[in-house]
């Protein structure tokens, strides 16, 4: 697996972007958890778990990219007696992908408005197995993410059409940007520029999500 996909001019910026994404998603996760505690609504709990996992995955990605960038991982590998730096990078990338994918699965499960946990377990297992049994894990990860983001985006678009407000529009557009970002990442496996464009699209998405939170809190 390719360990660092960013173009040279984007080195370091991606680490900053990922940290920002992590901060925003964890703030949303905390807020959703508070809503869950106030309402006892399980869907708010699923949303909180989803954003928390996505936040963790972004923290992980940011740390791994930072270590690769600063060559610190070579020292860590020496310290923990891991022979190959590439092996360490791959483990980090896998953890990021697992957390992100399970986060998206929770969002998909939330859109089903179901309380059947078997569906959730099945979705998690099928997603992880299909990713790790595939010949190109990275490509399958972005493919699965894109499919899940299509389902989630359609749900938020329908939510906007049912309830035409600025807040519902912000979330629908934010997830469309995340979807475009994920589709861009599909190409970034071979094209470094798409990696940077994907980050910029994600940046717009997370800013919209954060704007929504500010608007809701001002009520």
């Amino acid at each position, binding site marked *: 697996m390719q360990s660092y996909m960013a173009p040279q001019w984007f080195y370091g910026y991606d680490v900053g972007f990922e940290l920002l994404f992590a901060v925003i998603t964890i703030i949303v996760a905390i807020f959703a958890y508070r809503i869950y505690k106030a309402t006892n609504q399980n869907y708010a709990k699923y949303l909180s778990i989803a954003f928390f996992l996505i936040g963790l995955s972004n923290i992980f990605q940011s740390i791994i990219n930072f270590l690769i960038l600063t060559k610190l991982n070579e020292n860590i590998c020496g310290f923990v007696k891991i022979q190959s730096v590439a092996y360490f990078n791959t483990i980090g990338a896998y953890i990021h992908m697992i957390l992100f994918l399970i986060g998206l699965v929770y969002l998909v499960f939330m859109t089903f408005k179901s309380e059947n946990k078997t569906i959730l377990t099945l979705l998690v297992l099928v997603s992880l197995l299909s990713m790790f049994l595939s010949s190109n894990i990275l490509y399958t990860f972005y493919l699965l993410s894109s499919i899940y983001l299509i389902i989630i985006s359609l749900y938020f678009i329908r939510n906007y059409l049912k309830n035409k407000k600025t807040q519902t529009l912000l*979330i629908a557009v934010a997830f469309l940007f995340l979807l475009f970002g994920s589709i861009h990442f599909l190409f970034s496996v071979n094209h470094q520029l798409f990696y940077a464009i994907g980050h910029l699209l994600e940046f717009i998405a997370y800013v919209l999500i954060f704007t929504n939170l500010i608007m809701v809190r001002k009520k």
Partner: protein
Amino acid sequence: MSRKRNHLEIIRDVLLAIQIKGNQARPTHILYKSNISSDMLKQYLEDLMEKGFIVEEKDKKENKLFSLTTKGFNYIKDFETIKGFMESYGLE
């Protein structure tokens, strides 16, 4: 014509009906103020008790009374924020 209330708004109306009666309301008063059917009210009261928003008490004549818990008061206070967030993500 006013639009149909959603689940979150009905909960708020039931809790408000209890609050405006000095936090001790009988089912008949809640029924009248919250403007829902008696079957629905029964379901909502059971649900709200189970979730810890209200508690059931008895007066001297052994009539049922309902009171808000801290969680119930907080729901009324934060209702607009809760509603805004839940609507944004289609959770209501």
